[in-house]
């Protein structure tokens, strides 16, 4: 059976087209233009690589399924993620074969892009080329001869511009032609080696290429043999290469090495030789002797002093926007949901159902939506930086620093964003190509001091430390402690990255082979689209997890719910309404009853039971069971700690970090033996715990969304909790040994 023949596959399903190309070719823009905005994001089996599928309609009304393949410079693979490209393009098991392959080519980097095209053509898949970024040719002093390229390659070539939309009708028509007559895009291998020794290598390995890969097509078997020779070695991580194929490759490579040959170089040089010999016929350079615009911009932006200053400024703006500018909108969303919550309570009553709906469901939805301003802002800046080409320069400038701790240069922006909030930062790890780099960043970003920890620190410092004392006569203690917490969390995050990157997530030290894309004017629709899809997928995917967690936490903090318990408070309320005439006084009296009821409920809740049960575990950290409730309740979000403590002490869950009542209550709280429950040492232990523990269901939901598995969020929660426990233990017990209170 010829591979990828649409007629053989037509029955019962849509024709399938894989869209592939080098990174930074504008593949996504072409994909979006072809499929509209309704792509479905799934997952390639076995690895956490997103698989986007969209549908497009041809001029004759036929529908086609379009599958996005991760960007790649060649089909060669060493890791399982890289293997996805060849599996998706050529339809190697476990993936289905596409009926045609649309290769998106960056016209301004034609020669390098053609290398991949040659490889794909060799595999006998029906291919067509979309020469993208044709609008940028002139600025680069290049002239392309499309017809000559089509003649040499033997496959349809269409000039398009993802930016302006030019050429897309022609592209659809060419796609229809290739699907109807696959042979139009299947001219046979362009480059074939003349070297008999290399030929015998390829033939020998081809015999061991599984039949389910080549379907009896000998040329395809030889192409896959060349792929295997370039990919398989003693240290690859490929999952689906059969032992026979592996053995054949290794023995051939050994033979070659003994003869002083290098098979890799021979194959790669063969393909580039073919391209180099023909390049002058289809690409002409018109150098005008002037520096290109990109070079002139880079002179400034990569300048050691000016460039670095501008870089710091750009990062400052990103951080400031997340930290400060998002605040009013977040406050407004908070306010809307608080109103909704109160409205739900008064509509459904104060029974368990009303309380669950208001404080579990509505509040949980509020938690989800409060993240949107930061996500939208961060993705606006990321989209801008990616689209203009500045992101590649950021990775460039930060490479030395980030590599020293095992992170990718591109991890810098997520790390900085982590100081505002881990959730958008985790979503932003998408800008890194390697799964391992993304994962490592996700695992350490939640250690950065996010804005939700600040109210907790503020409360503890104000309640337990002498706020009016200074060090050296002018440095206020609260400020110094705050700075110390920032330094502490950053150092721990960097150490964690270094440790995890060398142990659990150890990877081959991949050479940095960054591409420096030319600067481009941002394509606003793409930026807006990215902001939209990111927010939408966060709300629908991570949002579900957050709402479920929120409801579960409601049960934890409010159950068991017995109507009998509520009765005395109901009676009190009725009495107040009947006896107190002044509206303000009545309001106050009712509020007091509400707080007492809240405290009583909490004291009988599951959380209190668990808190008391695990008190022996918490005691070495200096925590009593009430603090235990606060810590557990903070799983909803760290700042909820304050409200929970307010509720525990009957001050009301609406207490904030400025509440003097809560501070006084904490200072006055005594243990059963009469000693104060909160000493400065306990406060330090609490702060260290909050700095390191993953007390944030939304962070875990975001990691679940990005990795598509529960394994990594669970690991993140476990390792941070253990880290927090050990650190608080060391602080509290160490402090006591040193005689501190």
């Amino acid at each position, binding site marked *: 059976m010829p591979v990828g023949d649409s007629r053989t596959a037509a029955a019962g399903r849509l024709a399938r087209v894989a869209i592939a190309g080098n990174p930074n070719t504008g593949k996504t823009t072409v994909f979006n233009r072809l499929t509209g905005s309704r792509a479905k994001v799934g997952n390639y089996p076995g690895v956490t690589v997103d698989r986007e599928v969209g549908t497009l309609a041809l001029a004759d009304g036929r529908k086609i399924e379009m599958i996005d393949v991760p960007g790649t410079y*060649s089909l060669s693979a060493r890791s399982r993620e890289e293997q996805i490209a060849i599996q998706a393009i050529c339809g190697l098991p476990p993936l289905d074969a596409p009926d045609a392959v649309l290769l998106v080519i960056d016209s301004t980097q034609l*020669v390098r892009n053609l290398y991949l095209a040659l490889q794909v053509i060799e595999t006998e898949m029906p291919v067509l080329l979309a020469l993208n970024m044709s609008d940028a040719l002139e600025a680069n002093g290049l002239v392309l001869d499309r017809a000559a390229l089509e003649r040499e390659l033997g496959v349809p070539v269409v000039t398009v511009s993802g930016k302006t939309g030019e050429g897309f009708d022609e592209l659809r028509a060419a796609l229809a032609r290739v699907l109807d007559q696959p042979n139009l895009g299947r001219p046979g291998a362009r480059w074939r080696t003349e070297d008999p020794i290399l030929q015998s290598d390829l033939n020998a390995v081809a015999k061991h290429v599984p039949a389910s890969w080549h379907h009896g097509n000998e040329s395809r078997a030889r192409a896959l043999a060349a792929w295997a020779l370039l990919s398989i070695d003693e240290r690859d991580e490929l999952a689906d290469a059969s032992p026979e194929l592996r053995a054949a490759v290794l023995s051939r490579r050994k033979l070659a090495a003994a003869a002083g040959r290098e098979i*890799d170089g021979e194959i790669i040089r063969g393909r580039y030789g073919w391209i180099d010999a023909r390049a002058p016929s289809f690409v002409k350079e018109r150098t005008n002797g002037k520096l290109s615009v990109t070079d002139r911009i880079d002179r400034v932006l990569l300048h050691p002093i000016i460039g670095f200053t501008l870089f710091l400024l750009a990062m400052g703006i990103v951080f400031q926007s997340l930290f400060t500018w998002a605040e009013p909108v977040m406050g407004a969303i908070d306010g809307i949901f608080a109103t909704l919550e109160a409205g739900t309570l008064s509509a459904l009553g104060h029974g368990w159902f009303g309380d669950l709906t208001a404080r579990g469901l509505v509040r949980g939805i509020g938690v989800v939506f409060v993240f949107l301003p930061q996500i939208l802002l961060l993705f606006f800046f990321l989209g801008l930086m990616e689209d203009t080409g500045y992101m590649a320069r950021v990775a*460039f*400038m*930060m490479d030395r*620093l980030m590599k020293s701790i095992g992170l990718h240069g591109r991890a810098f922006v997520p790390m900085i964003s982590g100081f505002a909030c881990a959730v958008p930062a985790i979503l932003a790890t998408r800008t890194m190509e390697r799964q391992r780099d993304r994962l490592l960043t996700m695992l350490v970003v939640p250690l950065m001091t996010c804005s939700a920890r600040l109210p907790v620190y503020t409360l503890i410092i104000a309640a337990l430390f002498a706020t009016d004392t200074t060090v050296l006569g002018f440095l206020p203690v609260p400020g110094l402690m705050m700075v110390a917490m920032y330094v502490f969390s950053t150092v721990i995050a960097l150490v964690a990255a270094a440790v995890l990157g060398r142990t659990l997530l150890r990877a081959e030290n*991949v050479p940095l*082979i960054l591409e420096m894309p030319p600067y481009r004017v941002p394509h606003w629709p793409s930026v807006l689209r990215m902001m939209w899809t990111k927010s939408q997928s966060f709300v629908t995917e991570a949002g579900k997890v957050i709402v479920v967690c929120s409801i579960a936490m409601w049960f934890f903090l409010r159950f068991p719910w017995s109507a009998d318990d509520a009765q005395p408070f109901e009676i009190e309320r009725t009495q107040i309404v009947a006896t107190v005439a002044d509206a303000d006084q009545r309001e106050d009296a009712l509020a007091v009853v509400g707080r007492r009821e809240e405290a009583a409920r909490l004291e009988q809740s599951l959380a209190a039971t668990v808190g008391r049960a695990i008190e022996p575990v918490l005691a070495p950290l200096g925590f009593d069971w009430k603090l235990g409730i606060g810590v557990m309740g903070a799983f909803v979000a760290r700042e909820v700690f304050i409200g929970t403590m307010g509720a525990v002490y009957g001050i009301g869950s609406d207490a904030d970090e400025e509440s003097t009542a809560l501070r006084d209550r904490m200072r006055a709280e005594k243990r059963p033996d009469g000693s104060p429950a909160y000493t400065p040492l306990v406060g330090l232990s609490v702060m260290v715990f909050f700095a390191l523990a993953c007390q944030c269901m939304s962070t875990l939901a975001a990691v679940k969304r990005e990795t598509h598995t529960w394994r990594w969020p669970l690991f993140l929660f476990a390792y941070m909790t253990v880290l927090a426990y050990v650190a608080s233990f060391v602080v509290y017990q160490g402090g006591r040994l040193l005689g501190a209170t």
Partner: protein
Amino acid sequence: MRHSLDTVLPGTSVRLVRIGGERGFRCRLMELGLLPGTSVRMVRRVDLGGVLELEVRGARLSVRHGEARELVVEPL
């Protein structure tokens, strides 16, 4: 005559003679067009990031200083 790529001054073009280092590294560079015999222009050095920017076959790419030491070049 022959020296490593990291010593080349910005703006200078050289010819690549040999790539050292691990096989995975060599393959990647070659597949990006950095084959022995190819002429390479040093576009700029960004010492802050420890990275070099090169122009090869009309395309730009960057390698780290340490990695550039594995690339032996000679004057054109």
